[in-house]
């Protein structure tokens, strides 16, 4: 099976991708409207919470963190696969990433923006948010550089700005194509501005390659560090269930996992909505599915490592938290996480499901449900079964406002993503052309080899 047909004309690639920027289908408007409605609901919740106080989240005094922090980790995690596809696989010369990395990279950027919102939504005095920035001031007051939360803010900001840069730089040749093919109007003006006068000369291509490679190399350690630092929020604390040495790699694996599952979901949606069957082919889908399966197994392994480490550590408090997760109030969610995260991906091991689109769509959604539960199960149970016995009989259930905010974040993400898909080419035209070209070269080579053999 080949990843892409070798006989696609380059003009056809341009035409197909440019078509995705025009005349939205009805379904597009429906999705956009639903996303906007969901986001609007969240804005309403936030206004209410801002005016009333954080109590409307239904969190209480021992249980000070709730859904917001869990969902924050979820969105940060989602952002990792974009970098995996666009930067790591770029360095590894994996050609199959080419038709799909653009939307994965956009996903990275937008999920980081969503995660950033949850930081804002979570803090009690949003209006004093700037205290956490190290701005120079006459009083000589600085933020606390010892706090993992501050590292977090910095890591996320760096990662977000680098991701935006990477997305933009990788798009320049495509923006030039868009500029040349557009009727005069606001779009053409936008593309002219963003294409930075790209003409496709040799010198430009050379500089472009070097720039792209540099940013890719810069981004990889950032991607690893950003989720390690999110893990530090927990691992650096003293609480049982959080103070775990293996948390940073565990978080990174979980991040890649949920990101890859999200790529499968979006792959299927885009393929259908924009009719990208020629480019987003089933063999490529199969490759992502296999990659996701591998990461799922790594995640399962790291889970097992954590449980074993806790079990044999003689740390009574951590052990109690683990037992509490398995048997206490949160047990259905905890077992749900194990089921969705470790059992459901076994479907991917069967060849006949690896290209079965309805099955893959359902499974990818289940995987992300499992990964969301994982984050919640990291945050919540420690509060209801920590060191101090007074906290043990406290139950907590998130309010409608909190659930609404989580729901709305999906709307906000979808909104950004749908707008992106109509304004910018969501398939990289120049790289698909490269891919087709590599394929022809490969065919020629094997033909020559065959002739030589005769």
């Amino acid at each position, binding site marked *: 099976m080949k990843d892409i047909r070798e006989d696609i004309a380059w003009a056809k690639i341009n035409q197909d991708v440019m078509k995705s920027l025009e005349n939205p289908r009805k379904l597009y408007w429906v999705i956009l409207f639903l996303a906007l409605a969901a986001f609007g609901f969240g804005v309403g919740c936030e206004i209410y919470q801002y005016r009333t106080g954080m109590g409307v989240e*239904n969190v209480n005094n021992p249980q000070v963190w709730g859904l917001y922090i869990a969902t924050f980790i979820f969105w940060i995690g989602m952002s990792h696969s974009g970098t995996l596809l666009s930067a790591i696989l770029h360095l590894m010369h994996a050609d199959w990433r080419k038709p799909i990395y653009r939307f994965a990279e956009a996903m990275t950027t937008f999920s980081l923006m969503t995660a950033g919102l949850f930081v804002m939504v979570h803090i*009690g*005095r949003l209006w004093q948010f700037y205290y956490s920035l190290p701005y120079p001031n006459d009083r000589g007051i*600085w933020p606390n550089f010892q706090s993992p*939360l501050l590292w977090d803010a910095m890591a996320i900001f760096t990662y977000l700005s680098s991701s935006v840069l990477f997305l933009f730089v990788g798009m320049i040749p495509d923006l030039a194509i868009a500029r040349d093919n557009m009727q005069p109007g606001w779009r053409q003006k936008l593309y002219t501005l963003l294409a930075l006068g790209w003409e496709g000369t040799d010198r430009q291509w050379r500089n472009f390659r070097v720039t792209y490679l540099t940013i890719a190399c810069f981004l990889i350690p950032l991607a690893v560090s950003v989720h390690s630092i999110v893990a530090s929020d927990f691992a650096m604390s003293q609480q049982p269930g959080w103070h775990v040495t293996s948390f940073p790699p565990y978080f990174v694996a979980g991040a890649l996992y949920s990101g890859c599952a999200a790529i499968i979901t979006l792959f299927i949606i885009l393929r259908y909505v924009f009719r990208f069957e020629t480019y987003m082919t089933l063999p490529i889908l199969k490759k992502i599915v296999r990659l996701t399966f591998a990461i799922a197994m790594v995640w399962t392994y790291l889970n097992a490592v954590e449980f074993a480490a806790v079990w044999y550590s003689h740390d009574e408090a951590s052990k109690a938290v683990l037992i509490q997760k398995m048997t206490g109030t949160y047990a259905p969610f905890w077992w749900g996480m194990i089921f969705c995260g470790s059992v459901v991906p076994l479907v991917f091991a069967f060849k006949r499901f690896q290209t079965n689109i309805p099955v893959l769509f359902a499974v990818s959604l289940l995987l992300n449900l499992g990964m969301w539960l994982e984050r919640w199960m990291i945050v919540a149970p420690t509060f209801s079964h920590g060191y101090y016995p007074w906290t043990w009989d406290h139950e907590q259930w998130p309010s409608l406002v909190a659930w609404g905010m989580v729901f709305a974040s999906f709307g906000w993400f979808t909104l950004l993503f749908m707008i992106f898909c109509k304004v910018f080419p969501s398939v990289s035209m120049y790289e698909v052309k490269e891919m087709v070209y590599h394929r022809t070269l490969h065919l020629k080579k094997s033909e020559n080899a065959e002739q030589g053999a005769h």
Partner: protein
Amino acid sequence: MSVSNLLENWAQVRHEHPNNDKPHDPYKWAMAIDLDACTGCNACSIACYAENNIPVVGKERFQHGQQMHWMRVERYWDEDGREFPDQGFQFLPMMCQQCEAAPCETVCPVAATNHTADGLNSQIYNRCIGSRYCSANCPFKVRYFNWYDYPTDEMVWPAEMQQQMNPDVSVRSKGVMEKCTFCVQRLSAAKVKAKGEGRIVAEGEVQTACQQACPTSAISFGNLVNPDSRVHKQWAAQQVELDKDKQAKNEEEEASELRGYRILEELRAYPSVMYLERVRESAV
């Protein structure tokens, strides 16, 4: 503004271990609570509410666990097989332990919670942005968050009730963390008075509200540096030392005469509150 300024400030607020690099002089505020004397009457808790303008949140919010009792009296039932009317229990008054190496201090992103020179764990309400990381990392869970805007809430403070608020203590708006301060307003007043007279605060000159209200004098509070203080004598008699993570009581074999211990000492937070174990038949 410069980096050197940053580093200097850094050294001022951060130090390594309790009092190795910065000995407490002339004050180190500490407490000793005799659980054998405690009757669980909750007077300390009420006194604390009155002294520190703590909002009474009401039934519904209490059920949500959003209560603000800086000083709480916990009840632990004996598990010796006896049923309710006969079942015994113990009380444990619990408030901020003013840890010397406080887990809450290192994690605050804006450094709103700090250590003072006299060994208190201070909370700067104006600086707090409400990330609640301090409470998440507190082993004792003695930090309370303002989930709602209580000072403007008619249900919490009706207009006529505002007359009884303590003018020395600021009210806290929504979105900030608060906790027991060891009645820092009283400590400051006493220190200012003593400084004006060119001396240090004497034993018995300052009391915390909970100590003052305790009918059995179970709570003693004072300056641990002062060898004449009741707290110092109690700590010394129990051989409890501030910068140790295991006290003489735990080192000795069973049936120790010593009763002094600190809660969750093995976490090495070095609390400033010593508890005296209850003396009872089952424990002797």
